[in-house]
């Protein structure tokens, strides 16, 4: 066992971890099950969380790699009383079918929008390249994400 400390969804927390424990295993073990396991090899994006402002796959990071950093998970992004605009947009666009990939997509898109609020379609295409969705064909996801860009909102192209 090893003790590590990092900022999780805005609060500094301490955890006892196994040296080979992955970040996804730690998160799910402490009840943050919004981070989903789809492949365990960093190829589907369902476990995307935001580390120091960048979207990363929690299944291919060791928990100790989070030490001293800032980790944001889907649970820290919004809740029923105050959902994040991306979460509302995904729901309203019909971009949530089975919903298993949705937290990873929200986290990845959030990392992009936090850095570049006026992200355009090409930005989303590049940044979401690691997120698989088998249900939607991405059409509604694209609509939802674009509607959250300051760019789209300003020009009234959100749809």
């Amino acid at each position, binding site marked *: 066992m090893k003790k590590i400390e990092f900022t999780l969804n805005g609060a500094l927390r301490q955890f006892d971890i196994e040296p080979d424990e992955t970040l996804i295993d730690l998160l*799910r073990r402490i009840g943050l*099950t*919004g*981070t*989903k*396991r*789809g*492949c*365990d*090899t960093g*190829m*589907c994006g*369902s476990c995307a969380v935001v580390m120091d402002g960048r979207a990363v796959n929690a299944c291919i990071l060791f928990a100790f790699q989070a030490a001293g950093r800032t980790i944001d*998970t*889907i*649970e820290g*992004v*919004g*809740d*029923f009383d105050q*959902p994040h605009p*991306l*979460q*509302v947009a*995904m*729901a*309203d*666009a*019909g*971009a*949530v*079918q*089975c*919903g*298993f*990939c*949705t*937290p990873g997509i*929200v986290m990845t898109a959030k990392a992009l929008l936090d850095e570049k609020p006026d992200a355009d379609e090409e930005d*989303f*295409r*590049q940044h*979401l*390249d*690691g*997120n*698989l*969705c*088998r*249900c*939607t*064909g*991405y*059409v*509604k*996801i*694209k609509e939802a994400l674009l509607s959250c860009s300051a760019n789209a909102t300003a020009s009234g192209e959100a749809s």
Partner: protein
Amino acid sequence: MSKRKFKVVNQPLRKIDSLSLALGKPAYVGDLKPADALIIKMLGSPHAHARIKSIDVSAAEAMPGVHAVLYHGNVPRIVHTTAGQGFPEPSPYDTFMFDNKMRFVGDRVAAVAAETEKIALAALKAIQVEYEVLEPVFRIQDAMKDGAPVIHDEPEAKAVIPVPYEPARNMAAKVDMEIGDMEKGLAEADETVDHPFYNHYAQHCPVEPHVSMAWLDREDRIIITTSTQVPFHCRRIVAQTLGIPVQRIRVIKPRIGGGFGAKQEIVLEDVVAMMALRTKRPVYWEYTREEEFVASRTRHPMLMRLRMGAKKDGTITAVGLDATSNTGWNGSQGLTVVCNSGSKMLPLYRCDNIHFLGMAVYTNLPAGGAYRGYGATQAAFAYESAMDELAEKIGMDPLEFRAKNHIKSGETSPVFRALGEGSEGVDQVITSCELARCIKAGAKEIGWRKRKPHTAKKGRYRRGLGMACLMQGSAIPEIDMGAATLKMNEDGSFNLLMGATDLGTGSDTVLAQIAAEQLGTTLDKIIVYSSDTDMTPFDVGAYASSTTYLSGQAVQNVAQKVRKQILKVGADMMDCKVKELTIEDSVVVRKDGSEQVTFSEIALYSMYTANQFQIGDISSKIVHHSPPPFAAHFAEVEVDTLTGQVRVVKYVAAADCGTPIHPKLAEGQVEGAVMNGICYALTEEYLFNDKGRMVNPNFGDYKLYTLSDLPEMKTILVPSYEKTGPYGAKSVAEIGINGPLPAIGNAIYNACGVRLRTGPFTAEKIWRSLQAGGEIPFEEGH
């Protein structure tokens, strides 16, 4: 066209579970795992075909933290099918919980339940197995040869309905149907085509792999929480496989992370139930992605021969389709998938002389199962490619050729009666078909009029247009049943309890819309609880494009009954006749406007005041028709003739699904299916080594498209009104996946004169075909 204005149905409402899922709330099996659950891991066979000579699990059993090891020597040997289908199943009984014979690389050898995954994996390594390696067989053509290795030589293997089944010849299913005289029809034709096609292996790739858990409750009942499309079939088959009463099992389906047919199958549940009994602890089993590829289920690969003849005027004189599927190591859904290759495509065009020969053949490769499209995908590739080739031969535009021949409202096809689910089918007259409008709308959107023959194209990058027409069904008539319970609460809300299984499609929302529309209330007043064998009435589950059409009618019926009860109580309260009343927005009003009572007042009155009773009811539904949805798909592609790389520039899907109950979700069904079909056409492929081991069971080497690959995609819903369906609805879930393979294949031909008969359409195949002057020799792929 819609025949009436709706208030809840056909409205742009939010899918009821979408926000909670976007918030990441615990919803799926894995999110609900008890902290003290034992972890199950399975030892997979290293050989494609082998017999276990000896197995020693004692070292594994003795390891600290290991609670049980299951293998063929210590579990019941009860033959069954893993296919989640109606009873008795049309799939052969050819599977055991564990067997001493291995039939594919990854077959179940032994399962361990341990305190941690690490311990379980270490225990697998401690299991000593000695195999007698047998000669494997991988290809359809090899499996059918005299003297081929027999995969199911166990005496128990049998068909449980009267259908041909010859395991000694590796034949898992056979169906033969002729209408008119195909040979005579071919002889009468001015032009004919006769070509082989091969549909390759593919997996559903739900982002959530198969996952199940089980524990014993205080009454010693087994509670199984599982990612399944068929909770009631699951309960029945697990009871059968363990040799225990159905009564002792409760199956709960929470949210599912996608299924697409893969979860219409009992893949994990028998083992988690057995482990719960053995260990008396909660147990949890989640497939790895590799196991999902190899040991769950796949699309049935199919070898086809398509013969067709037509007159110069475009009259189709004969169609012959021979379809032989590779059903892999077990025969799950083998018969019905291949039947659907005939029944879901052959009625599409009018023809008096039709022959269909379907077979399913065992091999030592992963098992086929239900996969969105269910045989129609495979047949659409062959049929719609051949339609293009025949159109060219008779000198007709392929679009005109289809428009001239496709089935229309008021017409029937002899195929409907001749071909069902392993037996005769059910006659039906088409009562809604807007395929003509789908073709027109799609052609306009893709710019069909500017289409030129490939011979007119030059340069390195060449664009082409292709199209395909499609149909499917809506539920299995006279077989499938769905039921729903509805009860009213004192605030005017309702509990809707259904066996119907939402696997991510949004059926909970669609069915709640139907209930709300019928009741005269709003969507937010319906509390949906579905798919729990203790709590909800029966439903066959989510397959065969059935839920909206079949379960939707059960919901509509129960809501109609409850509506009558509400009106009756309202009439008592207002001392008037029911016929003087109507319902507007959760309020029962006198038509003359003189008086009204709210739903809440009615519920409170019925619970507490007078003539008390629970407002509520239950309804069941079986259907007598399976009205097909129709679609016309159009693809524009660009082929790089230097490299053979093909890119989909634009894809248009025009679909007639009757009334779209939830238009955004209906579009989403089309778009998701089309994207899945595009990946199937272009990139998805199982690669096996010569020992039968899949060498690319991961998302790095098995390519699914992401947002970055999304072509311009346009979905056009062309509404019709299906009078037998709930509010005019038909199905929409499966049909979309059938289009891309033929539409893109036809577009590639139109771009550069290359005709591909084996998917996927890789750069290598296109380049080799270009070098060969248009076509490479046909071979059965994987």
